[in-house]
């Protein structure tokens, strides 16, 4: 949002009060804090309106691709560093299918796409999009492949072609929801922009020179396309880091507004491609487009995204309480852990593996891990005893046994005193839990 003074410059300065505020300046101040609407001033010029709307637009436009549950949203970021607030719209990953691929290859890719889906610390991390690439240069063939992929997968699509006719053919052959057209370049700009405008699809614009790219974006906008994604034509890690930073910084610091759109990175090669995908995830990438994605690469890549896009103020946590695992009863032991998601899911997973019934008491440590919480004074024998009381754990389990994390051995004496339970110090690593439970 522009400041009150910036807004005031564009107002008619009649001080007539028709806006229900005594002066233009008072009105400007209300506008700056979003408490009034520009339309309330009957005298503001069209030109001023356009200028003010442009400067109050978010620094990076929010782009939606696809529809419904699987749609992806990218852009609308405001920060250069995650610690300044947070990063809002996580990087999305897309895998490519050639329109020349054989029946078998297509089936294999589609299967892989649906297999690239994992659960970690209670969140689903998965592949987000599919791209169909017009290698055949034949619009009909392209349209057929797009049709097939859109029938068999619900993921949002990227239409990869140099040819506006192919894009139009795909659009009329299949019922597509807002696929991304990839890409408009120096050579096909007019045709692609016209197709994007008519079909109301978002459009990627590609050039490896940022000045040229800004030029192309201006032309695409002039042709009536608003939903734009940028491909900076990067080929290595340095280019990815530098160009992405230049575009992001200019946008959020408002030193240049012409490239205020999310970035797509088309990565090249298997090893370097993976490194570029990781880089793009840390450094402002909106979409990463890959030829293929091996699960051994997908897991670290998806987890990096999960880390970078975690809100710095709020660790991922689970609800405190008493969790039954493997159908426990009155003879089952109680184990306790903390409500940091990573810890909870690791421990719960290991208890499940043991197939031994148990009660897992999750103590509220504001999302801190065992030792972090202990050092910060947020996990004490009192807080554990209180959690036992409030969850009525000792009513549900009469075994009189409390298993504690190995790292908290120094707490065992006090805990025994505070709870009256027999305290068993468990292993340091939760992977040792099955062995312990079986030995009880």
């Amino acid at each position: 949002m522009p400041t009150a003074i910036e807004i005031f410059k564009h107002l008619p300065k009649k001080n007539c009060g028709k806006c229900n505020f005594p002066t233009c300046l008072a009105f400007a101040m209300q506008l700056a804090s979003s408490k009034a609407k520009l339309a309330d001033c009957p005298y503001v010029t069209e030109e001023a309106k356009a200028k003010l709307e442009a400067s109050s637009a978010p620094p990076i436009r929010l782009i939606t691709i696809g529809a419904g549950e699987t749609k992806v949203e990218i852009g609308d970021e405001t920060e250069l560093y995650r610690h300044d607030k947070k990063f809002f719209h996580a990087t999305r990953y897309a895998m490519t299918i050639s329109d020349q691929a054989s029946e078998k290859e297509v089936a294999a890719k589609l299967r892989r796409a649906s297999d690239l889906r994992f659960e970690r610390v209670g969140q689903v991390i998965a592949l987000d999009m599919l791209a169909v690439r017009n290698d055949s240069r034949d619009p009909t063939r392209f349209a057929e492949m797009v049709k097939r992929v859109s029938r068999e997968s619900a993921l949002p699509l990227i239409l990869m072609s140099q040819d506006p006719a192919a894009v139009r053919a795909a659009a009329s052959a299949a019922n597509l929801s807002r696929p991304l057209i990839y890409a408009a370049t120096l050579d096909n700009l007019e045709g692609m922009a016209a197709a994007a405008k008519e079909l109301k699809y978002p459009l990627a614009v590609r050039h490896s020179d940022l000045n040229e790219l800004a030029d192309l974006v201006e032309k695409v906008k002039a042709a009536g396309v608003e939903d734009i994604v940028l491909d900076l034509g990067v080929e290595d890690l340095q280019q990815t880091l530098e160009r992405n930073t230049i575009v992001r910084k200019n946008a959020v610091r408002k030193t240049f507004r012409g490239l205020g759109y999310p970035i797509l990175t088309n990565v090249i090669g298997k090893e370097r491609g993976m490194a570029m995908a990781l880089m793009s995830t840390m450094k402002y990438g909106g979409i990463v487009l890959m030829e293929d994605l091996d699960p051994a690469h997908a897991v670290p890549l998806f987890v990096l995204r999960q880390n970078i896009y975690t809100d710095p103020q709020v660790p991922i946590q689970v609800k405190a309480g008493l969790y039954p695992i493997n159908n426990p009863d009155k003879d089952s032991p109680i184990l306790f852990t903390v409500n940091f998601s990573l810890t909870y899911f690791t421990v719960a997973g290991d208890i499940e593996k043991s197939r031994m019934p148990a009660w897992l008491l999750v103590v509220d440590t504001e999302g801190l891990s065992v030792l972090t919480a202990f050092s910060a004074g947020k996990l004490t024998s009192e807080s554990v005893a209180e959690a036992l009381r409030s969850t009525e754990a000792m009513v549900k389990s009469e075994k009189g046994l409390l298993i504690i994390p190995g790292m908290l051995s120094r707490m065992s004496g006090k805990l025994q005193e505070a709870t009256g339970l027999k305290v068993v110090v468990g292993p340091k690593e939760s992977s040792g839990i099955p062995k312990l439970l079986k030995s009880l």
Partner: protein
Amino acid sequence: MVEVPVPKEKWSGKVGTVVLGASTADSKERKVLSIGGETGMPFLSYEGLGNRQLIAGEVVDDTSELIEVAVRPFGDAVNDPAAWARKWVEEFGADLVCLRLRSTNPEGKDASPEDAAQTVLKVLAAVDVPLIVYGCGHEEKDARTMEAVSNACAKVRLLLGQAEENAYKTISAAAMSNHHALIAYSNLDINLAKQINILLSDFGVKAENIVMDPLMAGLGMGLEYSYSVNERIRMAALMGDRMLQVPMLCDVTSAWEAREASEENAAWGDVVERGKWWEAATGLAALVSGADLLIVRSPLAAMVLQDAISDLRGGK
């Protein structure tokens, strides 16, 4: 045509330089390497790159807790620290070697400080690169071990680990008398990172002898905290905070604490490839957030990271 500005920051500060390996009297010709010297945020060539970021290959003198997948390419060499170090340098392109004297652990083999110092000398004789040396993580024993190591290697410029808020005096005194550099460890917090540097400097350790380790948490194990702490440290240094203007070391072997790095699981793909990228991703995050020096466990990850560093520095 439109002119897209390059948003170059006008920083007033600069990361200092630390020289490792240098020695006039060392019997072998040892490589001399410098780290630090950046005048901008990581790898922005238009702000100033500084010295090349370096990779130290991890060698441990006690094989009881090794993660097999990570060290598989070394084969039998893991039973001999000198052979292991040589493989790092000759086959896997490590710039330095990082030796952990885990054998000194009182709860394990409890090797004496003198024996440990002998191991250090053997490794030094086997390679011509600079050496980082750590104890076993037992505060009281480490003080004695590192003192013995420092005294035994007065002719070489070692990087000694580690000085902590509650345990820095013995190791600092030894480092100062033998002209060794020192790792200033702190616990994932910019204020603590500054605090230990202040303590060292008050004690008399010069900035040119300090490399800071703000604790790099591994991928999936709190990496995001380290990423942000590192970025904030680098920014503070560039904005002129003298007590944070020392090069940064990140120990990315922390990556192996996550089960995804080494656990067999068909749905997660090949464990060797996955483990390599688990550590490489941690290393890349460390580099991009400000690391000057990485300690790496897997040689496959180390090679990915060497390539990444060259790539990030424009092919150099």
